[in-house]
């Protein structure tokens, strides 16, 4: 889609998605640095809060999301070669749903243990960052569904670029939020 001389030349997909991606990278950088600054100011609160998180579930979600990303990359490659790609994309979307189910399980366990968004600064930021990321997963699933529907390489590359942004953000969110302090 990008033209020669275009500053987005060489990037896959529609240039508009890259404007969104760069904005999202900025927003999540502010959130993650804000989380770390708050942890610096309230180390005991954050250390206590992190002790209640389910790092194993978060690790499992990392495996699920990265596997989904690999399937999206494979689907994009196959479409570019004129091969069938929808089974790969369906697998990727199914794993995206699994990610949300695991996240819901994690939240349910938190609520059942009596922790909510008003419990402490730690839980406010924990729910804000992970919930905001989960909302992006929902949006990404819609984009992938559009990519599967249209069977157009530029559309699928656009959807895939956004989905891989979510992979990339999660591999940074995971140690920030779940690493024991």
């Amino acid at each position: 889609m990008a033209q020669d001389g275009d500053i987005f030349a060489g990037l896959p997909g529609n240039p508009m998605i890259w404007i969104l991606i760069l904005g999202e990278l900025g927003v999540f950088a502010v959130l993650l640095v804000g989380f770390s600054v708050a942890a610096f100011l309230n180390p005991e609160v954050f250390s206590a809060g992190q002790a209640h998180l389910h790092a194993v579930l978060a690790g499992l979600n990392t495996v699920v999301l990265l596997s989904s990303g690999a399937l999206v990359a494979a689907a994009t490659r196959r479409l570019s070669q004129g091969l069938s790609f929808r089974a790969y994309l369906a697998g990727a979307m199914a794993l995206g749903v699994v990610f949300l189910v695991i996240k819901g399980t994690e939240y349910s366990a938190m609520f059942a243990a009596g922790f909510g968004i008003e419990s402490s600064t730690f839980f406010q930021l924990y729910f804000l960052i992970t919930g905001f990321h989960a909302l992006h997963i929902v949006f990404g699933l819609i984009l992938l569904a559009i990519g599967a529907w249209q069977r157009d390489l530029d559309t699928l590359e656009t959807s895939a670029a956004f989905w891989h942004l979510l992979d990339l953000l999660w591999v940074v969110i995971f140690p920030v939020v779940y690493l024991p302090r």
Partner: protein
Amino acid sequence: MSMIAKAWLALMALTGGTLAVVSLADHLPHGLLAFTVFAVAGVKAWLILVYFVGIGRDASGWRTILVVYLMILCGLLVAFIALSCASAGLCPATS
């Protein structure tokens, strides 16, 4: 085996390695733990950019910008984690 499959295997291995290192958190200096985990996260993000997104040599400028973004972000996060545990006395002086 395709490069995507190789990148996926590397990402799985790095994720397993991260979980193994975190499970040893009580036995490692906290600063070293944070540096290791974020260095691994940076490598994982780079693998995603190059092999999943497909940002190659024809977009080397963007690849450089995104790698610099990750280095600055991960560097800031490691610095604040090290500062927070040091200020609270939660990590040994050797960290």
